[in-house]
């Protein structure tokens, strides 16, 4: 009986042998360069290793050490701050733009679609360089501008300031990503049937009510998608703060993110175990947020169906 089933499976496998050939390149490369490193990282998290001497098993020490490190605590706070503000501003701005362009702009819609997307083509590192030039303390455009308004030359050190560096990093994210979310929302708006709007307008529903009661609820799948991608990116933020602070994390680690903390422990202090432990914290955060997103999504769908 069991033999019969094995035989059937084997026959099916031989018949569909092209399936395995087609999957082989992906699976082989993936096993070697992704699965193996991830398993190895799990092992490293429980060891102390500088890359040269023998690895030493230390149990949960790396995980505890990271939690007790004030710099890591600060990095968690910074990451949450940057993730929250950059996502909220980007998604809100993109939603507003998408609706406005869709509803009010009669001609040249393509112009808006293109222009807001251009910053996304600029590498985060390059965008950070451009921002640095504009915000340099001596001779930066922003200071020159302030100086000409107030009449006294300004030499304010924006990038060294603990209060301003985080908003500047967030600004960079907003500048790069708004156009992308706008395009996603515009595609979502296309899928809302026009006659719903017609009916609402005939019934005399106001524009704000149309937006908040019809557009936003019907656009919820796109908004949820935008929020989850912004979250996945935000948790791993590295390029923008790294280049903006020239790898140092700003004065007093004011914009060191978890990703930067991981990079510093592994590649400047060569503490590979601690760095791996940190990467598993990032993974845990991603899993928790993704699952809660799926849970909320399901609840919302059930709610809509009822």
């Amino acid at each position, binding site marked *: 009986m069991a033999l019969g089933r094995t035989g059937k499976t084997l026959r099916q496998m031989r018949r569909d042998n092209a399936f395995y050939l087609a999957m082989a390149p*992906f699976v082989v490369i993936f096993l070697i360069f992704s699965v193996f490193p991830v398993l190895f990282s799990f092992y490293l998290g429980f060891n102390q290793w500088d*890359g040269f001497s023998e690895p030493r098993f230390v149990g949960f020490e790396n995980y505890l050490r990271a939690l007790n490190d004030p710099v890591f605590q600060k990095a968690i706070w910074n990451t949450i701050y940057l993730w929250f503000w950059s996502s909220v501003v980007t998604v809100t701005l993109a939603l507003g733009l998408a609706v406005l362009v869709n509803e009010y702009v009669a001609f040249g819609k393509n112009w808006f679609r293109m222009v807001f997307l251009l910053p996304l083509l600029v590498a985060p*590192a390059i965008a950070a360089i*451009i921002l640095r030039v504009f915000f340099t303390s001596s001779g930066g455009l922003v200071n020159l501008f302030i100086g000409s308004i107030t009449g006294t030359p300004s030499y304010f050190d924006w990038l060294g300031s603990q209060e301003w560096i985080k908003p500047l990093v967030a600004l960079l994210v907003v500048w790069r990503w708004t156009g992308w979310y706008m395009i996603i929302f515009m595609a*979502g708006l296309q899928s809302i049937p026009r006659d719903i709007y017609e009916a609402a307008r005939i019934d005399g529903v106001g524009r704000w009510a149309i937006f908040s009661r019809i557009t936003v609820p019907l656009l919820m799948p796109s908004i949820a998608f935008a929020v989850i991608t912004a979250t996945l990116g935000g948790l791993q933020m590295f390029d923008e703060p790294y280049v903006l602070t020239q790898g140092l994390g700003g004065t007093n680690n004011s914009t060191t993110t978890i990703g930067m903390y991981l990079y510093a422990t592994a590649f400047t202090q060569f503490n590979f175990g601690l760095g791996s432990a940190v990467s598993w914290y990032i993974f845990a955060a991603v899993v928790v947020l993704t699952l809660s997103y799926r849970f909320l999504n399901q609840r919302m769908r059930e709610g809509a169906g009822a």
Partner: protein
Amino acid sequence: MRKLLANRERRINLAITIALFLLSLLFVLPLYWTSVFATRSLQDVFSFPPPFWYGDNIVRNYQNIANVFPPFRPIINSLIVAVPKTIGLVLVSALAGYGLSRYGRAPGHRFLLAMTFATLFFPPTLALIPFFLQMSAFGWLNTFWPLIIPAMASGFGVVWMYTYIGSTIPKELYEAAEMDGAKGLSTFFFVVLPIIRPGLAALAVWTLISTWNDFQLPLVVLAEGSRFTVPLALTMLSTTHYSDMPAVMLATLMGLVPVFVLFALLSRQFIAGLTSGAVK
């Protein structure tokens, strides 16, 4: 009355369009200024009001970059990484996407499909440290290999091609091809590939641009300045020669041009690619 209302509405529309237009200019202003500063002298850049139009100092600025590194070297390096990686990624993804889409009944299909989707939620950061150690063991550090070969297996690319092939190729086509005597893989190369060209193009543009912009992985893997890709070389230049703003801006502009040319040629595919991910 109706006409009056229509007029009022038209005026509101126009006002909002103009406001949006001004906002869109604000979004491109940094890029425009980058290109203006690239052609100006140091003195112009530090003056107020800042120059709004192009100057004639571009050759001097170019020479200033050339004193630090050969200005086209990073661009060539980025091409050496991005082009083979993109071709490989698109082919590997299309093959796997074809397999997953056609052979739904093959043993192991469900597992491989679930695994592919699961990879989308694995943060790349998780593998960064062990990947570095692995590359060091392979003797691949400070070469382009770590940026090309491993990246060819992309869960994102496979999911993309899987959905694309599933929605463009009818099952009957496979049966017809089979009757004509085409075996599995030859069906892929001679029947499927020509049909899915738009999907391949979209994935290719997306991959090229994101590879061009990659920063963290090259930073970890490449050590020698002569191997630096565009973002790395520019970061180095902006740290060591931050006072020479026009030269930094010119180098930045040079690093941006290839991406913008690509976008100008293939923006339709690029945007189609963006939205196809969101439909799911």
